[in-house]
């Protein structure tokens, strides 16, 4: 058993995986038995069911393509199983990922002599919940007792920040991998690493480069050999896989060479057998890949602009991922952004290194728990496992149990430095400041004393703090909320919220839920995305309560208290409590990336096309040239989506997911254009809301509320001038909320609300109950009993029906 702590980080990549170990002072890369630091994320299952992983499996991609699989990371969370015909087995993506993790785990054991029990695994920043939870599941299957997830860009940043001391200012991590692109903007100051923001494209990576190059080779073949070949043709799938491998090898070679050939003798492509010998030059790569490279750079510019920065203000750019060694990419980055590229960092293993550092900061020691238990009085300890602070606090508390206990405590560092001696307070707790030595693990021993001055053993007896960087809490990458029956989203956590986080809201059910009825379902859809409308966000899970699980029938308008919780790695748990019965439900029924069938996608494409046509007509009519331009771009993207749907028909599920997301994004763009063209209407609304609220606020609000109101109104003005639709809507919500608060202090407010509710009596979900309430309300009106009027009106609100269309768009939510 190793004496020192060991922290394990794993980069589970689409194409390649890597692992690194941090011992508190240095990061070591984990090597495969062949001596390399990369393990291709490829798994093969033979007829006997035995598994081959990594470089060896990659060589078999050629010889046994049907039983050898790669790129399964992109299917994580879809629940889609992959076929291994020879072994007659089907494996889910997380099971395949588990094989890669097992192989890395074995390498760690080989090199460091212990089977790691805990680790940090990196995931793309834009991974959604189902994908993250599949990753955790893979780790569990691989035998890890506990894992934390870290977003890849944060890992890279941590590693880059650790390696280059005293770096200051804003900088960017540019991570272009096999299948995903992430750009993150960071800042280091006083040893604190802060993520300012990130952006990216879940569907941009080296394999897209391969695709354009394969298309080029196919075109060349079509021209020279007189055959028609298209990538979307399912009959060509097997042959294309082989060709893609050869093309990828050529692409990699062209990083060093000026020209090379793609050679595949006797390649079977559907009905044709071709001897492929196509020359590929670096210039070809440059020409064909520049549009893709530019797409990634555009994302960087967008990210910078979003945070009010110019490329010139970046102090450096850290490159991560295989494609970032390509000359075309480096050249373009320098041409378009004009920033210095950080050197001395390994683009292929930086993520794993950062994950290992993060394991240290999370105190996630990889060593299995010792067999021999320590003896002594138990104590809970809390301290920052890694910090930039030179005198952090250590906090502790005695576990309540019988037996002798210490009255004071002192902490002694490995080199003899001693903290002050602190007494345990009446809660049995203490707080102590310790000095730590820079850039080192600092091991401390706990020294307890009893009332008669004798030493007493404490458990644990030691702990260590690594001095280095302080990493801020990882930010949530996408806003998370619950869809409501009116197609709105009730936001629980905003993008950028520090993790872990927990939040509780109360909602009401829109309809009755009958005890014992299985078909009667309360549905709570959980969505991620940056939009106010639920249908524009992605459904990432749902909590469902069936009538047959209920203790009692719930009338419409019953209160449900919902708590969502995210851990540091962004894993979600949910808990719904029926307030009236205190019954609790916790199981998230669906945690899968929703499936996308080619038929449904085609329907979506058609509908989007129609919408574009309508918007274009309107744009022409109103002479909105900017809109016409943007619609042109949308059409181009629609062309891509159509190609992806073609590939999806050929069995490429990844392309199906890509098409689906493409459509969602286009939808959001169109919504924005739509909103933009309705801007005058929104402005009008702003004017009327502000004037309505001002009269109320000036009469019924407190001075502080008035001050906030002034601030909100200034915000409305600013957003109006800058034509920022979202900001204007946000500010308007503030104005309305303040006006609303004031409104309810108006003596006529509740009577007015009551009258309104009463006038809608006929549409209420529970007519007899509503009639009774209205009668009660009328009587209260006659008495001038405002309290009752208020209560009655609120109850009437609960009986109002949900709009069917909105509800369907709100992922069939049962809540409001």
């Amino acid at each position, binding site marked *: 058993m190793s004496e020192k702590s060991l922290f394990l980080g794993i980069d589970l990549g689409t194409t390649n995986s890597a692992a690194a170990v941090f011992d508190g002072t240095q990061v070591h890369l984990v090597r495969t038995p062949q001596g390399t630091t990369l393990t291709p994320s490829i798994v093969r299952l033979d007829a006997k069911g035995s598994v081959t992983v990594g470089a060896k499996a990659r060589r078999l991609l050629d010889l046994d393509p049907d039983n050898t699989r790669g790129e399964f990371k992109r299917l994580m969370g879809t629940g889609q199983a992959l076929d291994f015909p020879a072994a007659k087995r089907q494996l889910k993506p997380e099971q395949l990922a588990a094989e890669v993790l097992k192989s890395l785990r074995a390498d760690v054991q080989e090199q460091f002599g212990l089977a790691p029990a805990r680790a940090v695994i990196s995931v793309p920043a834009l991974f959604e919940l189902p994908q993250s939870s599949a990753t955790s599941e893979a780790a569990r299957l691989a035998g890890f007792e506990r894992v934390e997830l870290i977003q890849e860009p944060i890992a890279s940043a941590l590693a880059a920040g650790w390696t280059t001391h005293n770096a200051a200012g804003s900088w960017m991590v540019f991570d272009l991998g096999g299948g995903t692109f992430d750009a993150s903007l960071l800042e280091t*100051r*006083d040893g*604190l690493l*802060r993520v300012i923001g990130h952006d990216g494209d879940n569907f941009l990576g080296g394999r897209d480069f391969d695709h354009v190059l394969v298309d080029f080779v196919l075109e060349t073949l079509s021209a020279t050999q007189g055959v028609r070949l298209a990538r979307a043709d399912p009959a060509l799938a097997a042959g294309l896989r082989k060709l893609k491998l050869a093309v990828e090898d050529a692409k990699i070679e062209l990083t060093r060479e000026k020209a090379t050939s793609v050679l595949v003798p006797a390649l079977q492509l559907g009905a044709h057998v071709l001897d492929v010998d196509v020359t590929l030059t670096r210039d070809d790569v440059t020409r064909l890949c520049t549009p893709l490279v530019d797409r990634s750079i555009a994302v960087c510019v967008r990210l910078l602009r979003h945070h009010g920065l110019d490329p010139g203000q970046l102090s450096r750019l850290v490159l991560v991922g295989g494609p970032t060694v390509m000359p075309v990419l480096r050249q373009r980055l320098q041409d378009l952004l004009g920033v210095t590229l950080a050197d001395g960092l390994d683009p292929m293993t930086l993520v794993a290194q950062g994950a290992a550092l993060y394991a240290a900061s999370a105190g996630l020691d990889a060593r299995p728990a010792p067999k021999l238990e320590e003896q002594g009085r138990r104590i809970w300890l*809390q301290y*920052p496992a890694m*910090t930039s*602070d030179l*005198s*952090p*606090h250590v*906090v*502790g*508390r005695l576990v309540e149990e019988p037996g002798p206990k210490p009255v004071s405590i002192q902490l002694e560092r490995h080199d003899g430095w001693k903290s002050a001696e602190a007494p345990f307070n009446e*809660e049995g*707790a203490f*707080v102590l400041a310790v000095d730590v030595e820079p850039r080192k693990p600092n091991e401390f021993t706990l020294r307890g004393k009893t009332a008669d001055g004798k030493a007493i053993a404490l458990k644990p007896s030691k702990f260590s703090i690594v001095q280095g960087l*302080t990493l*801020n*809490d990882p*930010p949530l990458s996408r806003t998370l909320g619950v869809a409501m029956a*009116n197609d709105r989203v*009730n936001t629980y956590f905003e993008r*950028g919220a*520090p993790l*872990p*986080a*927990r*939040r509780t809201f109360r909602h009401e059910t829109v309809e009755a839920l009958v005890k014992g009825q299985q078909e009667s379902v309360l549905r709570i859809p959980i969505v991620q995305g940056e939009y*106010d*409308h639920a249908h524009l966000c992605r459904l990432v899970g749902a909590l469902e309560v069936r009538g047959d699980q209920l203790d009692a029938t719930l009338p419409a308008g019953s209160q449900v208290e919902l708590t969502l919780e995210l851990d540091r790695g962004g894993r979600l748990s949910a808990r719904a409590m029926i307030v009236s019965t205190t019954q609790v439900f916790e199981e998230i029924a669906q945690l899968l990336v929703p499936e996308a069938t080619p038929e449904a996608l085609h329907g979506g494409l058609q509908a989007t096309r129609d919408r574009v046509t309508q918007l274009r007509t309107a744009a022409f009519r109103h002479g909105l040239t900017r809109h016409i331009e943007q619609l042109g771009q949308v059409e181009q993207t629609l062309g891509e989506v159509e190609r992806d749907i073609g590939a999806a028909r050929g069995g490429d599920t990844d392309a199906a997911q890509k098409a689906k997301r493409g459509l969602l994004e286009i939808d959001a763009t169109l*919504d924005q254009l739509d909103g933009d063209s*309705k801007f005058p*209407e*929104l402005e009008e*609304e702003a004017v*009327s*809301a502000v004037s*309505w609220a001002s009269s109320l606020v000036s009469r019924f609000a*407190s001075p*502080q*509320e008035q001050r*906030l109101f002034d601030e909100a109104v200034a915000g409305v003005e600013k957003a109006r001038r800058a034509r920022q639709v979202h900001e204007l809507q*946000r500010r308007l*919500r503030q104005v*309305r*909320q*303040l*006006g*609303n*608060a004031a*409104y*309810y202090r108006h003596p006529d407010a509740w009577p007015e*609300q009551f009258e*309104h509710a009463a006038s*809608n009596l006929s549409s209420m979900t529970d007519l007899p109950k509503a009639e009774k309430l209205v009668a009660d309300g009328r009587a209260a009106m006659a008495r001038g009993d405002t309290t009752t009027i208020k209560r009655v009106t609120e109850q*009437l*609100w609960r009986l*109002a029906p949900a709009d069917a269309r909105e509800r369907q768009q709100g992922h069939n939510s049962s809540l*409001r």
Partner: protein
Amino acid sequence: MVPGLFERIAQNPFYVLGLAPTASRTELEREGSKLLSMLQLGFKDALTYRSPLGEHPRTEEAVRAAMAELRDPKRRLVHELLAALPASQTVPAAPQAAPELKWPRAPRVFGYGPKREG
């Protein structure tokens, strides 16, 4: 969800962390991490904090959120201004929680103009 005035004052990150608006970055990190440790161990002292509006429960989430707010220099500035309000100033009792608009037509009554998307 836009916090109202009451929340804005009561949840000012400086009050949550028990720091003066002049606190340095290092102090912020040190105090924040100490509070998180104390909350994780259920220290009585850490469970509440004071603002000019009185005493409030302190949670780990609130501490994390407060730290995140103050790490961002632009956002910190706003909180510095608000935390500088004299604590003696008379502040009204918490306003009744403004109910969300539940009745679909309510916006019209409130003078919001026609209900619109977005």
